């Protein structure tokens, strides 16, 4: 776990992005998907940095030596979900085959007017989960996001669906967590991703695939202050137009004794890392942390 992803620049240009979005929406998904092959091939050949960063993960998650086709799958999977994000934001969710598991966990609590934290990761697509959110009746859904390092992607998607901007709580301002609390108090759902460190985040040392990795400590500490149920979610891309969404109860309440704060936050975070590892083994090609996660390259 590192802040390495913050240093990475977005590739491509705004015009190329706009063209892709226009293409995707006017030519349709099959034609746009055909374009993903040359694009992924391009990245496979030219972005050696990314390739070097993702290799250790793939070797650990797959438990075997990896080849070009594994790397290519990774890029293709990422590109597919990014493309699908365009359709999802444009309101074309019905063309996807989404298998949802454990949604009752969330529905039951929302029916009781209980706010919930939805805890995700950069494994798979969170957009597909947001789509489910839009189908939950009367539930307010907000997503806590750090969008400062991908302004191009952000602007593009915001222009595609302006209502999305209203559902985003930007991290990095003093009242960020006050907004989170207010949404939960109204019985809403706040989604957050807990596998990436943002600058100045306090980190907690965990074990991920048997190797030490730093995870943000703030997430579990925040959950313990907010005293609401925490539900894990994973929106896994399974090829073609198939997605699998898993909801899993993490804790009715994350209890942290202030006197042993560091230790207990670490224990909770480790539990999260363990579940993440479990799903990573299921769908290694959904891992979209394209950077030196274990901070091994110094």
């Amino acid at each position, binding site marked *: 776990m590192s802040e390495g992803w913050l240093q990475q620049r977005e590739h491509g240009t705004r015009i190329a992005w706009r063209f892709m979005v226009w293409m995707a929406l006017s030519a349709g998904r099959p034609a746009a998907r055909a374009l993903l092959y040359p694009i992924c091939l391009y990245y496979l050949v030219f972005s050696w940095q990314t390739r070097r960063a993702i290799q250790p993960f793939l070797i650990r998650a797959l438990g075997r030596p990896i080849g070009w086709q594994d790397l290519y799958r990774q890029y293709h999977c990422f590109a597919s979900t990014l493309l699908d994000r365009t359709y999802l934001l444009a309101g074309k969710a019905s063309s996807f085959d989404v298998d949802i598991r454990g949604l009752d966990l969330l529905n039951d609590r929302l029916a009781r007017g209980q706010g919930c934290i939805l805890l995700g990761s950069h494994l798979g697509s969170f957009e597909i989960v947001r789509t489910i959110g839009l189908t939950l009746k009367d539930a307010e859904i907000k997503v806590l996001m750090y969008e400062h390092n991908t302004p191009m992607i952000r602007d593009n998607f915001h222009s595609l669906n302006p209502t999305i901007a209203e559902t985003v709580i930007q*991290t*990095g*301002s*003093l*009242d*960020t*967590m*006050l*907004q*989170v*609390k*207010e949404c939960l108090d109204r019985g809403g759902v706040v989604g957050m991703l807990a596998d990436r460190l*943002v*600058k*100045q*985040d*306090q980190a907690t040392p965990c074990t991920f695939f048997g190797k030490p990795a730093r995870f*943000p*400590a*703030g997430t579990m*500490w*925040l959950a313990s*202050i907010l005293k609401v149920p925490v539900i894990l979610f994973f929106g896994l891309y399974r090829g073609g137009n198939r997605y699998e969404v898993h909801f899993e109860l993490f804790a009715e309440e994350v209890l942290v004794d*202030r006197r042993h*704060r560091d230790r207990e936050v670490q224990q909770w975070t480790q539990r999260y890392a363990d579940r993440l590892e479990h799903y990573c083994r299921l769908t290694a090609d959904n891992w979209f942390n394209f950077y030196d996660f274990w901070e091994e390259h110094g």
Partner: protein
Amino acid sequence: MVPPMYGRNQSVSDISTLESKVAKLIVHTLALKVDPARIQPEEPRFGDGVGLDSIDALELSLAISQSYGYQIRSNDRDIVATFASLRSRPHSYSKTWGSSVTAARSAGSRLRLKASDPITMVPTAPQQQMCGLEASVMFPVYSAGDS
């Protein structure tokens, strides 16, 4: 309504009592390992407001709501800004004799005051303060102007 933290009518000792109370609240709430007396209210604590710092602000607002019964909302811009340094640094506003005279005259003309009008001023601020000086000296002397 928010109890004004640093209203004009508060004496210096009130402010420092409140400050030390707030300092204690901060140290206790955030489980800081420092002496409350050493908390510098002017020092920005939530500088960049990223990650844990914004969580600190949340904890602090919960503690304030428990201790003072006031719920801080994210749209209370002033209060959130106050969190940033707990006490905003004093700003200097330069004033000249001329500008004070002009201000007193224009106030007088707005109130249509004439020199012959029988007026009694009851200033509520001491004249050592700028606002007191303006209300108790400049206004009575210059407001009625020439008319």
